[in-house]
């Protein structure tokens, strides 16, 4: 097994060159008070970019982004898990088809899909036209919290379904049968066997929905009518509109640290499943064998 260790090397090189080095270049701005004028900067060390952020206004923006991210993730999980579960019960070929069908809409530009939602939800939009056709009072849908959450869930749902489905496929059905034989109810079997085993997929799904959803801003901007000041928007504003790369960089570093800490907390959950223990067990075994 040792032979495979070396397989990491190409990517480590790649990471250093194309992720770490560019990130360091930008992180440098966070610690300098360069004016950012034309990308020219002065190399004087400062922490003021970080302290500046702890203004109630900005903290509120950050908090709101996290709230929206959590809501989106929870709804995606609640909707995505059953869908992934039901798909995994289909025939293998049907599974591939369904998974592709769910992914394909995301290949259409996000902006175009969001514009389509505007014309569905608008006060002269499709839903309201239908309502007035049957003599119902019009509903305010666009530019509400509902519209924002709807748009976010719509955009990120496939990213929840896909990894959970991966975790659920090729699960040994004899495990379920064994649990049933031992007297577990279907619900217990699901909760103690299936769900536990799919937890790695759930965590991947959470990562892939939660991380981008806190830093996104196009959807809340278009469907929320600009009522949402979110952290992604704020960072974009610093980089492009104001040109203060130092502050923008500092804010994105604060965001990264908070998220990394949060994700570390979440991945602890994995340990309680006993999965990791089982694995470390086999790791040890293979170490002894080697």
């Amino acid at each position, binding site marked *: 097994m040792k032979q495979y260790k070396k397989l990491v090397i190409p*990517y480590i090189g790649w990471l250093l060159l194309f992720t770490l080095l560019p990130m360091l270049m930008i992180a440098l701005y966070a610690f300098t008070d360069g004016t950012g004028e034309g990308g020219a900067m002065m190399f004087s060390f400062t922490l003021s970019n970080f302290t500046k952020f702890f203004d109630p206004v900005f903290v509120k923006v950050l908090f*709101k982004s996290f709230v929206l991210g959590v809501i989106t993730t929870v709804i995606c999980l609640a909707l995505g898990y059953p869908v992934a579960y039901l798909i995994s019960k289909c025939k293998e070929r049907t599974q591939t088809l369904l998974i592709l069908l769910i992914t394909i809409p995301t290949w259409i530009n996000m902006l*175009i899909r969001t514009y389509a939602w505007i014309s569905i939800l608008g006060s002269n939009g499709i839903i309201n036209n239908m309502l007035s056709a049957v003599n119902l009072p019009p509903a305010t849908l666009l530019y509400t919290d509902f519209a924002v959450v709807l748009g976010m869930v719509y955009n990120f749902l496939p990213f929840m379904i896909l990894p959970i489905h991966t975790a659920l496929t*090729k699960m040994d059905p004899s495990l379920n049968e064994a649990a049933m034989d031992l007297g577990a109810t279907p619900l217990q079997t699901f909760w103690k066997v299936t769900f536990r085993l799919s937890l790695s997929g759930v965590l991947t799904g959470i990562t892939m929905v939660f991380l981008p959803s806190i830093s996104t801003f196009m959807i809340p901007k278009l469907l929320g009518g*600009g009522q949402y000041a979110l952290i992604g928007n704020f960072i974009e504003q610093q980089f492009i509109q104001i040109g203060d790369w130092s502050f923008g960089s500092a804010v994105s570093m604060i965001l990264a640290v908070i998220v990394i800490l949060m994700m570390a907390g979440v991945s602890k959950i994995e340990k309680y499943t006993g*999965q990791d223990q089982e694995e470390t067990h086999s790791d040890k075994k293979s170490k002894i064998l080697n």
Partner: protein
Amino acid sequence: MIKNRKFSTSLFVGLCLLFQYLPIIVMVIFSFNSAKSLSNFKGFSFYWYEELFKNNELMSAVFVSVSIAIIATLVSTILGTITAIGLSKSKKIVRQIVLQLNQLPILNPEIVTAISLMLFFAAFKVDKGYMTMLFAHIAFCTPFVITNVLPKVRRLDPNLSDAAMDLGATPFQALTKVILPQIKPAIFTGALLAFTMSFDDFIISYFVTGNGVQNISIAVYNMSKRINPSINALSAIVVFVILGVLALSYIVPAIVKKKTTSKVRKRTARIVIALSCLALVIGIAVRESNKPVLRVFNWGEYVDKSVIKAFEKEYDCKVVYETFDSNESMYTKYTGGNKYDILVPSDYMIERLIKEERIQKLDWSLITNRDSLDTSIMNQPFDPNNEYWAPYFYGNVGIVYDKTKVDEADLGQGFEILRNQKYKGNIYMYDSVRDSFTVALKALGYSMNSDNDAEIQEAYQWLANQKETMAPVYGGDEIIDSMKNSEKAMAIMYSGDAAAIMAENENMDFYLPTEGTNVWFDGFVITNECQEVTLAHEFINYMISDENALLNTLEVGYLTSNKHASAIAKEEDFEGNSAYGIRTDLTGNDEVFTYQDNALKEKYAILWTKIISQ
């Protein structure tokens, strides 16, 4: 009972699919709309499909998007999979570090990754274009593959591959015959996600590309200013093609009955790889011959493309044409190492570029069409002697209003009408710091370029109060389409966009508040680094000629600087359209934006964030 469950299963999955496809269906329907709207269906037509196939730029964007997505998916899937396998055997500390680094591109706002890669390529003096975009895509796609594949690899029984090797398999054989088949679903998912991320990416692609290379998202983004349903047509085709291929691949094997052995699969894999290599070669070979090249950076949807084609032909040159959506993103890209000969910035940005000595003086003797320019708008404070800029389009900022909803008498209130309770919940503001503060400062009778603290605070109070009492919606370019569809009673709007709205919705009219408003100018400037100075002047001269200025203004709907062309346009297409015109009461209360330094910009921006998040 089982049947029942099956039914509810398909119902639930079906509903979920319906949810995912609802906007797609809407989008497809509006691609057949005869009008230029995404919300108001006027009649069935294939017009936008014809437009699409005439649009070379979009077609090459399709090629770039597809080829980059395929290559990036292939490379990142392979790289990600072997890394995941390696990681599962690495020491915990290595794994932790690599995984944390790996999450950076997923977790960072795209703009941060974009700027960091832009700086990176600039630092190494890499010429931006197809290859830089490809590398950037591989860089942000691979983490998705690893995140998906790693959990599956970690759950594999390590004894299996050991057993295979004990039985005489080489490590490579154990990898391909034992490990890979077990993690296939995860690799498939990872590849699918990589493709999705690559295909739909805008921000990162925008900042790492150059030399006119653009993907579908960039094209879409720059067209969306004027809602061009050709994009819908394109997306509809994409959906149909993919669904068609999918249906075929689902039906055909069922007919041929599992004759699709691994041989066939291998062959398809080879074909895919060969095709993507071909794409790569073509992508690199796109570099044109030795014709002189002129690199123009203009606003999206701000020219009649046929004029540029004609110029290329007449002057036997190649125009590398790129677009931006704001003065600031233009500035970021230009100073971030991208090379251009001609830019089309607005007033305050011209002022900044002059101050920073980034543009050169024009040689007016080469611009023979100068006599057709409307001299009344020349000699602006940002360039008093017209040494640097040649005007292109200009206009005002005013209020577009629905005559059926707004009482004409209320218009006398000027910008205060935006705080009139009668119109609560019925107005669009422009989601931009400067344009919103212009409204407030002008309503209060101050200069929109104010740097006076007390005045700025007062304007902040005005806007905060407006947000609280009026519940306005802050929108961007999408409100152009919404106003065409009579969504709300009023909207702050640039005159050219207002003209477009009024041309399609006769209930709309344009109003310039009497207390003064913004007068803006966009013009051509030549950069310091320009290699083809004569050709650049010829280009400017060509664009402002009577004939071409007319073509441009009719296409774009903004008021042209050529007085002959604007006179004709006023008589024909824009007859009676009050937004096709300009009020330059510069001695009175109308003003031109001046350049703000970072400290001032930041002061406004913080207050704006406060207003939005209150």
